[in-house]
């Protein structure tokens, strides 16, 4: 699998009728196969909208998105999407949730169960395969969500603030887990977040976005050595970059914050911790 992503002159609009506004203005990015890219920006800057377009749920008003040269038209398993609140099927056990993608591909029952169990162990949930999602903690649910997407061996992994609803400790554990799993599979990752620490810790490359309208204001490589550890967070190099990002992000903050929009184009739900009040 390769997973080269091209975003060419994309303009996007969100909302209906009188509330329609321009979420993204002339965004162009080229992402190499296997790159871990973080989209960093405040709520409402269009990063989730861009992710939705990459996933195939939203169509751009102008411009084009391509993966390995092919235009993105509709959702597809090779562009896996992980939401912030899990979307596991409550009526399926963990193993059946994870194996779902293979079932849709027509893989035989025994084989897909075996592959699902393998992946479940890989994300550290061995022993929980017979549970229902409602019987898991938030962090565990997100792990199953990630496993469910990864089983399709996607070329691009799209993640919309996947750890945003978790507490700080769980978040740190999940970031570590994600990097470990990614080191094995090396799929292209586009990771959306508003947390600077998270973005700097995870990414090979950082795209900073600003709002009103959404556009990319900074694009830099992060050359911190891999594998990355929590100690990185307190090194001077990290702190300098963080300061730089804070400056960039606060530059546009005088204006009223925009409502947060999900990758499906809908306003964030009432219980969403990241929704603007």
């Amino acid at each position, binding site marked *: 699998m390769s997973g080269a992503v091209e975003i060419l002159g994309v303009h996007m609009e969100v909302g209906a009728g009188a509330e329609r506004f321009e979420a993204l203005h002339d965004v162009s990015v080229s992402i190499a196969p296997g790159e871990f890219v973080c989209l960093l920006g405040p709520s409402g800057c269009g990063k989730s909208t861009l992710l939705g377009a990459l996933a195939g749920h939203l169509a751009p008003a102008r411009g084009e998105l391509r993966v390995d040269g092919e235009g993105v038209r509709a*959702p597809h398993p090779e562009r896996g999407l992980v939401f912030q609140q899990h979307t596991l099927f409550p009526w399926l056990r963990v193993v059946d949730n994870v194996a779902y993608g293979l079932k*849709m591909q027509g893989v035989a029952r025994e084989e897909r169960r075996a592959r699902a169990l393998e992946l479940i162990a890989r994300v550290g949930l061995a022993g929980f395969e017979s549970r229902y999602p*409602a019987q898991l*903690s938030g962090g565990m649910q997100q792990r199953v969500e990630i496993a469910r997407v990864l089983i399709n061996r996607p070329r691009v992994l799209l993640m919309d603030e996947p750890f945003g609803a978790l507490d700080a400790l769980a978040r740190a554990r999940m970031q570590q887990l994600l990097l470990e799993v990614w080191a094995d599979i090396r799929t292209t990752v586009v990771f959306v977040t508003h947390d600077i620490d998270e973005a700097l810790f995870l990414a090979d490359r950082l795209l900073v976005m600003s709002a009103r309208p959404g556009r990319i204001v900074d694009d830099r490589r992060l050359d911190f050595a891999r594998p990355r550890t929590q100690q990185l967070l307190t090194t001077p190099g990290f702190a300098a970059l963080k300061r730089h990002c804070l400056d960039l992000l606060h530059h546009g903050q005088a204006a009223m914050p925009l409502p947060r929009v999900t990758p499906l184009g809908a306003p964030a739900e009432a219980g969403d911790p990241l929704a603007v009040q």
Partner: protein
Amino acid sequence: MDASHDGRGLASGLTPHSSGQPAANTGSRRRPDPSPRLLAALAQLVSVGAFVALWQLLAASHANFGIVTFANVPTPVAAADAALELLRSPKLARHLGFSLWRVGAGFAAAAVVGVALGLAIGRFAGVRRTLLPPLELLRPIPAVAWIPLSILMFPSTELSMVFITFVGALFPILLNTIHGVDGVDRRLVASARSLGTGRWQMFAQVIVPAAAPGIATGLAIGMGTCWFCLVSAEMISGQFGIGYYTWESYTLQNYGGIIVGMLVIGLFGMGSSALIRLAARAAMPWTAGEVS
């Protein structure tokens, strides 16, 4: 009680150091409180008993209050007699059999039509636009009001009664199914699409399981209304059936039978509804209590 021991069974010379009070207590143990559940059960028994006793009193004394009279109301004793008689009679099986067949057939038809239509209406805007308006027009009509038309439309008396039970069960099932489909989380559908679910697979793999709790509610309610409609239909037409038996008891002046019929109807109605709920819970194991 031995004065050397306080109520906790400790010898008074060994009082706990934390207590600043004199060791000796009254020396008598408190009786344990009766369990709250036992009390609640007793209360229920007493209140039901009082109701039955009051009924016996009113009926046996032929109490007459002008606007309401108990002159012809059967006593609990008479009802019990009629019950025993019915239990021993070969007609019981026949009455029950007919009622069960009518409910079963009507409910099954309503379940198939209601769920299928509900899924289609819930999922396809075009279907909703065309089919929902006429259905909404028919909905307020109580099933019982259909009886005369049903007799005209169906030459077979049995089918005309099954039609009534069908109509009775249809609307709760249909509307709860639509509601269930409407309530499916958009994000579940989006994720399913991202995972490669085809259009028709979406129905079986996602929509139906997600809407299942709503459908189950509709089926349980529909079963209840089905019995309700059946009884009215049987009182008016047909032979055999529990509703018919109830009405026949009135015309033959076997007044105790009226009470028996009423109770049997209530029992079967509630019982079958409860059975549906139980079956639904067994079919949807993920709705059992959550463990955090």
